[in-house]
């Protein structure tokens, strides 16, 4: 074995060692889990790129996650948590005994009364399971037998930024890794040419000036930065800096990269630093991404009946429908964590109209995604989550009018899950007559996190990373439980 081959081989050994050591020790030496290249020995096909050797802890039900985050907080009263009893309280002040000391945001803390507003939208029983379903989401309603609806979600945060940060990282304050980064770190990628964690964003028509998102929501926090989510952009290069500069075609790029590689190898033989080997490999992966990403984003190859399934906006880049189709394409290419953020759900006023818009954006594409995954045989091992960062108050913000609005409500809200080992056709949790307090089977954000990890074969108690002297976990230090009641 010549000197250089020895070095390449050593790099391989170091890679294995640093995966084993489960710490920051091998930083920069390791081929990188989130965006790793195959290593020089070429035997990587037998294992995922990166990931921890002790994962999964148990048999995984899901291989990947598609998280359809509905940013701004959809109202549970109009969508999921049917409360026919509210009609008799219409316009009445919410009793103090129900509010029971719940803090208010600065937006409604000055209100003298809290008039109860029943949903103006109708519900009907759907599917074999007979779940109550809102008229706002007819397409998804046809699939209720695939869904597990949770009506007893709750969180601690009452404003958007801390609440969405809490959902993404398990902490209200920025600085912790996002759930997708945790999974990229723990499980690595199943695809050599795509990131393990991909983010897609879309703006809603219900409220076009709605709550912002922040790059840190898919950040890696204290995990090494290669685990951060890669946001596919809606305009220009889907991945930043993906395209060659004007005047540089693929042949020229290839020739240039060969030259860089040749020179780097010459340097390696002199310096002996295995980091150079890694860099060579990363340049090769960059080159492959230049074809794999555009191929992924190009939906022209999809048959017409599939495009039709997602509805008319499937051909408009940056729309939720287009992102849903991309999500399926990412899923079938083995991307570990795919997260859509659809904005526009923050309805302090004009809620009925805004909700109509949001549901029109999302209902058909969401249903299409579930069906499409199913017909591709991907639903069984893809965990789908649909939901926002908190709920909305049963009382109106301001007066009860036809265009009423609702303030933020952390104590109870709804979301649904599907696929990935979730028990289909169940409704879990119950709220009181006012849809204000949970009366049965509370599910905290941490419980949802524990459940997601569990479906991917991870025990949330044992999935840690050393930070500031602690074994930091996604679920933090407070207790969290896997919601076994909704598992198949």
């Amino acid at each position, binding site marked *: 074995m010549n*000197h250089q081959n020895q070095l390449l081989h*050593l790099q391989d050994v170091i890679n294995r060692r640093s995966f084993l050591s489960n710490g920051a020790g091998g930083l920069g030496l390791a081929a990188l889990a989130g965006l790793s290249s195959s290593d020089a020995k070429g035997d990587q096909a037998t294992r995922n790129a990166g990931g921890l050797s002790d994962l999964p802890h148990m048999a995984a039900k899901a291989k990947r996650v598609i998280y359809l985050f509905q940013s701004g907080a959809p109202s549970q009263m109009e969508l999921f948590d049917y409360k026919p009893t509210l009609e008799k309280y219409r316009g009445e002040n919410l009793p103090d005994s129900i509010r029971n000391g719940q803090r208010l945001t600065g937006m409604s803390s000055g209100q003298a009364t809290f008039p109860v507003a029943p949903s103006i939208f109708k519900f009907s029983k759907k599917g074999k399971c007979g779940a109550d379903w809102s008229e706002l989401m007819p397409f998804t309603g046809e699939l209720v037998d695939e869904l597990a609806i949770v009506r007893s979600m709750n969180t601690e945060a009452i404003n*958007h930024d801390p609440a969405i940060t809490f959902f993404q990282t398990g902490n209200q304050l920025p600085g912790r890794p996002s759930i997708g980064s945790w999974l990229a770190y723990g499980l690595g990628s199943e695809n050599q040419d795509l990131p393990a964690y991909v983010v897609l964003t879309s703006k809603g028509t219900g409220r076009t000036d709605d709550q912002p998102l922040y790059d840190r929501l898919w950040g890696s926090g204290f995990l090494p930065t290669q685990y951060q989510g890669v946001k596919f952009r809606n305009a220009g290069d889907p991945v930043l800096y993906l395209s060659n500069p004007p005047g540089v075609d693929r042949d020229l790029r290839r020739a240039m990269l060969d030259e860089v590689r040749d020179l780097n190898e010459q340097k390696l033989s002199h*310096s002996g630093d295995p980091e150079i080997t890694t860099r060579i490999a990363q340049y090769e992966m960059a080159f492959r991404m230049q074809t794999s990403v555009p191929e992924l984003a190009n939906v022209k190859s999809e048959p017409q009946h599939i495009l039709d399934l997602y509805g008319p906006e499937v051909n408009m880049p940056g729309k939720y429908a287009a992102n849903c189709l991309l999500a399926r394409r990412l899923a079938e290419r083995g991307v570990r964590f795919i997260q859509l953020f659809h904005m526009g759900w923050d309805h302090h006023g004009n809620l009925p109209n805004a909700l109509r818009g949001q549901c029109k954006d999302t209902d058909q594409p969401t249903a299409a995604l579930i069906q499409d995954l199913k017909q591709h045989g991907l639903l069984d091992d893809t965990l789908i989550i649909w939901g926002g960062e908190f709920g909305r108050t049963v009382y109106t913000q301001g007066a009860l009018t036809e265009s009423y609005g609702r303030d933020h409500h952390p104590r109870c809200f709804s979301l649904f899950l599907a696929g990935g080992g979730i028990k289909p056709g169940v409704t879990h949790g119950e709220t009181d007559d006012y849809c204000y307090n949970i009366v049965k089977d509370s599910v905290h954000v941490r419980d949802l996190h524990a459940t997601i990890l569990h479906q991917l074969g991870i025990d949330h108690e044992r999935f840690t990373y050393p930070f500031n002297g602690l074994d930091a976990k996604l679920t933090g230090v407070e207790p969290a439980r896997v919601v076994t009641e909704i598992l198949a």
Partner: protein
Amino acid sequence: MLQHFQFFPILCLYWASGFQFAFADEKIDFNRDVRPILSDKCLTCHGADPKHVEAGLRLDLSESAFAKLESSKQAIVPNHPDDSELIRRIRLPANDELRMPPVRSHKNLSSAEIEILERWIAQGAEYKKHWAFVPPVRPSVPPASQQWSVNDIDALVFAKLKSQSLSPSPEATRETLIRRASLDLTGLPPSVVEVEAFVKDSRPTSIAYEKVIDRLLTSPRYAERMTMWWLDGARYADSNGFQSDDQRFMHGWRDWVLNAFDKNMPFDQFTVEQLAGDLLPEATLEQKIATGFNRNNRQNSEGGLIAEEWRIEGVIDRVEATSAVWMALTMGCARCHDHKYDPISQKEMYQFFSYFNNVPESGVASAGNTAPLIQTPGPMDVAKLKELDAAITSAQQSVQDAEGVLIPAAAEWATNIGPKLLQSTNRWRVLDGELASNGGSKLKMQADGTIQVSGKTPALDVYSLSHKATQPKKVTAIQLEAIPHASLAANGFGRKGNGNIVLGEVEAEMTTASAPDTVVPVKIAKAFADYSQANWNISASIDGNPATGWALDGLDPSKQVTRHAVFVFSEPIALDTGSRLTIRLKQESLSNHNLGLFRLSATDESEISEAILSPLPEPLVAAILVPAENRSEEQKKSIVDYYRTLSESPVARATATREAAKKTKADFERSIPTVMVMQETPQPRDCFVLVRGQYDKPGEKVTASLPSALPPLPNGAPNNRLGVAKWLVDPSHPLTARVQVNRYWELLFGTGIVKSSENFGMQSQFPSHPELLDWLATEYIRLGWDTKAMLKTILMSATYRQSSNVTPELMSRDPENRLLARGPRFRLQAELVRDNALAISGLLVEKVGGPPVRPYQPEGIWDEINVYGNLRNYKHDKDAGLYRRSMYTIWKRTSAPPNMLIFDMPGREMCVVRRSRTNTPLQALSLLNEVTYVEASRALAERMLTEGGSTGQERIRFAFQLATARKPTERELHTLLAGLERRNKSFAADPESAKKLLSVGEKKPNGDLDPLELAAYTITASVILNLDETVTKE
């Protein structure tokens, strides 16, 4: 090769569990070998947290560990591992319920760890205080190696190498040395001239090298390099960080740091001024600016937030940043409960919190800087302010002068102009009647018919006047006079706000005596005014839309004169005796734009035109009609008072000039940059332990004091922030000096002597060279905290000067170079990757400090996910701002520059003192394709063609040396030359592609050069900028 394989797994154990060197023949050291095991595996249940002391056993205290337990067993029997219950329990099989650590803890002891505990007990189980809490003591320095030693650093490093049977690497070449030192001390590569001068310097390397170091330490680039190192811990950014993420302006503080490093401010002073400069006696402006360190925390302005919640978060952030940067402690961990590992109770955390809790702040961010803040005028600003003050003084004098001539001027006006005005046939009669306000204001008519508004100041208001006719009369139009007054807002027309008014709607209606309950609307056909603000025309006051209205630019002093508006009825109305005419002035368009002084009058003129706007009110008419000599004092006064309001009066003119001067100054003052600073409230805020760390769950009340595990306040230091700052830099403090020198070491070698440079607590990694760490710490204090001298000492060492080339054998022995048998080699930090390319290509603009700049960023980068806040619609600069050092790039926290994040720059959300260092394909894409690097490649190509000689070989050598400081080998040269020739051909065949490539970037290509050749060289330059060696310090 096989050997490596066999050897490796054994070594793994040591690396995996931190950094341990307990070889079979060595004495076990409690701090190095045992504490990490106990801390990680045992203390959660047998440690300091009183809620979790299982079986009454604490393993962090020898008294407890050696005592008879409740079970009458003894956990540790010194010298007798086999009699020690601890050993018995950890040796049990994993499935045994009594096995420690228990299965449910998810912790396991490796056989190597069990062996260490056994040997430690066999050797007597000696406990030691955690090394980092014991003040450093100057170690005795072992005899130096004859051949390899410059200073004591080398002796200490050599001793460790010798114990491991390793030897140091040879000294790096001069090219490598000068590049390494230049990148470390300035963040920029050396110029070709600098490299050549050093290489050709005939003096011994030590002497020539010292000259290089001395030169670099005096460069302004040194201050920039050290400042960018400081900014991560200071969580410096240009935006507030939460939700709308508005811009803030803290570059004044950043420039203070630049200046401090440039002047080599001793680190103790650097500390005291940043933490408590405001509390120093007679604090200077600079010392106050320094305290911006602890105002760099994020702030929230989200609608509906609860202020106190976010104020508390800000204070916690200060505690975390201060304890991490100066002490490498994670005090924030004790926010919700006693610290799990370190001797910091929750109560002590809040006692320390109390020092940072007394800033007069609300918890809600303003757009821009949030109070408390301080203006930071530069010398130019101060001069300009003086000039503006002088202008105001002089204008004030002119007003007084004008007052002196006002009475004769008014009389003259009454004589000359008055009669002309009276020739107008119009007659306005004051309309009197019952006054009302629906907003609760008080309306009162005065002798001259003006109506003064006082009392409550509702945001919106409707005034009404109901006139009852005492004799039959005809009314064709009414007039409104809006009168500015010194008692009104900003000397203007409005009661509140900026002095302006908006009259939304004017309505009229009448009743007759016979049918007092039948209200008949009076239609207004047209309206005129002698002045309307742009887009706020008088016609908007009769358009039926209350949202639009008539406004007067009332905040502009030059426009503050009585204004007239006339409302013409579509048909004349006849008022019989007892009839009522009601006028309503509806001011519901804009909050706080309500009239403060006005007059309503009516006329019976049948021909109403705009000429009617000039006439005078009746009392004044009467006064003017009286011959000057016969006028009463009151009449004279009414003439003077009226004349004063006319824009042509000398007083009005002078007043307008003065107000304009004041406004100029106020505008300028607003433009002077501010910095958010620390201040103390007169009385400290009450401070409580917050139960579970929640703002709304106060527990026990506490007062400011320091954790008991650390030394007390030095003698004479006050018990406030200033005391804390002095305490941190007291030579008896065990942490500060060690933490700093360790971070300098990390900066230079890539890894600290304590690898966990952010954490020196119980869970920290044991130092690779404890004596060296203490030598450096005591040396720093001995040098009077002289940072340049400290860095020079390290850079001069033979340890630093080693070659970084590594053999496979050494790589497998020591992959992370913890033993220092070679020099450092690692990728440049994010900012320097870009700075380096700008410098090599000659694009770099070397301006120090100032407001942030906007280099290239992908289109739409700020707006894709956020339509809030004032940092939107990113447009890159067109000139110098494109080429400044990366530390000056505007940093929007929620959408930070991607080309920095990709290279591991932290998001600046919170204090980070150690970056990750990754190697990813996104980095490759950035260096290959980002406009910054494509343009830099072209600029480098231009340098090659204009400065690099006349042949391809010479030009490639030139560029290669710019990038790496060395000359390429023959083989490297051959590779690059072959590529260049290939591309010369391909671009010659495809001029269109060449043209496209050269069009990248704002800078125009050098038109004197052949575009086809330039394109070919551009790709060669890009190859050179993409080399591993170019982005690596070695």
